[in-house]
């Protein structure tokens, strides 16, 4: 790999009949970093992964993974990549160990090395106790871990994870994310597709937002958040509290005049003005009663809405908003 990029693609296009799954995509992923490919259903994420993993030839454009062309060097490229798809591609009638041994044999690691590697990975993915059970007895989370382990059997320098956490319960999802984080720490280059925005935020060094087959924004999670502004103060006023007084009290802290929607007052907070503590002091001095005050950081949901004009099409778990808000009891 002579290039500093583990994955490079330019002008990738792919159509199925009249549907332009990819309408010219450029990607660049530095070695050892994680690119989050973020977009709603049907945005073209899976098509991009299929092209980069040699499963599908592009209509036009080119791509190189680990320095190898996805069309001309496809055969050589396959030994350099690992793929874990959204279907947890494990053979249900094989045991966990047999599944990984099978993949090892097909990477041509040899019988002994495949067995050894299977044991190592089962242990690392906390599947050693279930190693000799048929995969059909595994839970959804265990199958995903096994699938991810299969992608890592040959310790490939580049791995592709296509919506690795789809359909998992929150606990299994958290476990899987931790596992991916550890792999990344070991220097593997990862391309991860996701619809869950906090997943990209948590794992990715850079994010490419794609919609309708095009990259509509790219940058670090922070850069993307920067595009939708900074932190936002949200104050729930107490019964009978005067709105105008509250707005006047907070105006000096905000970039623009605070707005009041129902009983909730929202103000984009200017950086370095004492933040939430100063806001509480000012409201107290103005004698405005409040029920709740919170500082909300922009989420990637906000990024998505501001870039595409529509929310990312995913089911938002209950209470997700609370994860990113700093609540202050009053």
């Amino acid at each position, binding site marked *: 790999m002579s290039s500093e990029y583990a994955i490079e693609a330019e002008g990738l296009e792919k159509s199925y009949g009249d549907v332009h799954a990819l309408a010219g995509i450029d990607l660049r992923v530095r070695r050892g970093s994680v690119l989050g490919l973020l977009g709603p259903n049907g945005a073209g994420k*899976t098509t991009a992964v*299929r092209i980069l*993993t*040699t*499963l*599908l030839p592009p209509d036009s454009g080119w791509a190189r993974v680990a320095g190898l062309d996805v069309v001309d060097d496809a*055969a*050589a490229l*396959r*030994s350099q*990549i*690992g*793929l874990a*798809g*959204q*279907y*947890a*591609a*494990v*053979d*249900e*009638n*094989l045991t966990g160990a*047999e599944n990984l041994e*099978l*993949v090892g*044999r*097909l*990477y*041509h690691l040899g019988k002994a090395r495949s067995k050894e590697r299977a044991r190592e990975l089962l242990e690392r993915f906390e599947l050693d106790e279930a190693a000799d059970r*048929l995969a059909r007895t595994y839970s959804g989370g265990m199958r995903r871990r096994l699938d991810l382990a*299969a992608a890592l059997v040959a310790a490939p320098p580049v791995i592709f994870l296509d919506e690795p956490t789809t359909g998992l319960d929150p606990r299994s999802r958290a476990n899987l994310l931790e596992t991916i984080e550890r792999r990344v720490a070991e220097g593997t280059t990862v391309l991860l597709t996701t619809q869950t925005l906090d997943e990209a935020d948590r794992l990715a060094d850079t994010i490419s937002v794609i919609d309708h087959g095009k990259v509509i924004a790219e940058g670090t999670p922070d850069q993307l958040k920067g595009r939708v502004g900074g932190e936002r103060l949200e104050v729930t006023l107490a019964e009978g509290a005067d709105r105008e007084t509250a707005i006047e009290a907070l105006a000096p802290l905000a970039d623009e005049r605070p707005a009041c929607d129902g009983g909730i007052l929202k103000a984009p907070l200017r950086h370095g003005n004492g933040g939430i503590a100063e806001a509480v002091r000012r409201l107290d001095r103005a004698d405005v009663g409040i029920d709740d005050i919170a500082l909300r950081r922009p989420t990637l949901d906000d990024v998505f809405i501001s870039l595409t004009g529509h929310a990312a099409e995913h089911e938002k778990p209950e209470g997700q908003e609370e994860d990113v808000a700093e609540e202050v009891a009053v």
Partner: protein
Amino acid sequence: MSALQYAASDTLVLAKRNLSRIPRAPDLLIGYTVQPIMFVLLFVYVFGGAINVPPEFGDYTDFLMPGIVVQTMSFGGFVTAIGLSEDLRKGLIDRFRSLPMARSAVLGGRTLSDIALNLLSIVIMMGVGLLVGFTFDANVLEILAGVGILLLFGYAWSWFFATAGLTASSSESAQAIGFIVIFPLTFASSAFVPPESMPAGLQEFAEANPFSTITDAIRSLWLDTPAHSDIWMSVVWSVALIAVFAPIATSRYRKATNR
């Protein structure tokens, strides 16, 4: 290892994987062997008494067994159709296609494991056949030559089923395609009744039908009836089926996609 050795090793690794499923999900094998055994009993004891066969075949059981084994061979490919269809839907084909393995290995492994299953079912079927009164009029070499022709014919149908498995939207519809093609072909042949008893038109169809050719070839080897051109035509038919369906299945596999 050379590319060819890798291809052979990948094929064997996958064939072993396919076969390991059989004892673990035995419903497939049970369905696949019990049904032909029921057919043997049904035709020998229920229909057999009403069917007249030419005297050179001995009794109806002797006439029937080669035909029913031929039918069983053609159904052996079901395991391939179901297996490929499931692998496709579960994303395993994607995984295989992303691995640095031989491109021929998935289909090669599937069809190869069908041969092993078909051999097993020949043994079971003929065991049942001997129990219900089938008698060979053949030496060991002739019996083995018959087994060889049966396995080759079964292998040819595996490629038809590989095509069906990679084309159909589900394993159920892959099976349905198989039934629709194979049932008329086996029944409108010499496998169960002599074609001479059929009306004009159907009779000509039955005589040209490859199922008749293979069945008559097995009868000539196992019952010492006249062979005519049946034995070498059996090989021609099987090779022709492979020549048609192997390239189609291979091309479908290369483009295989689960969405």
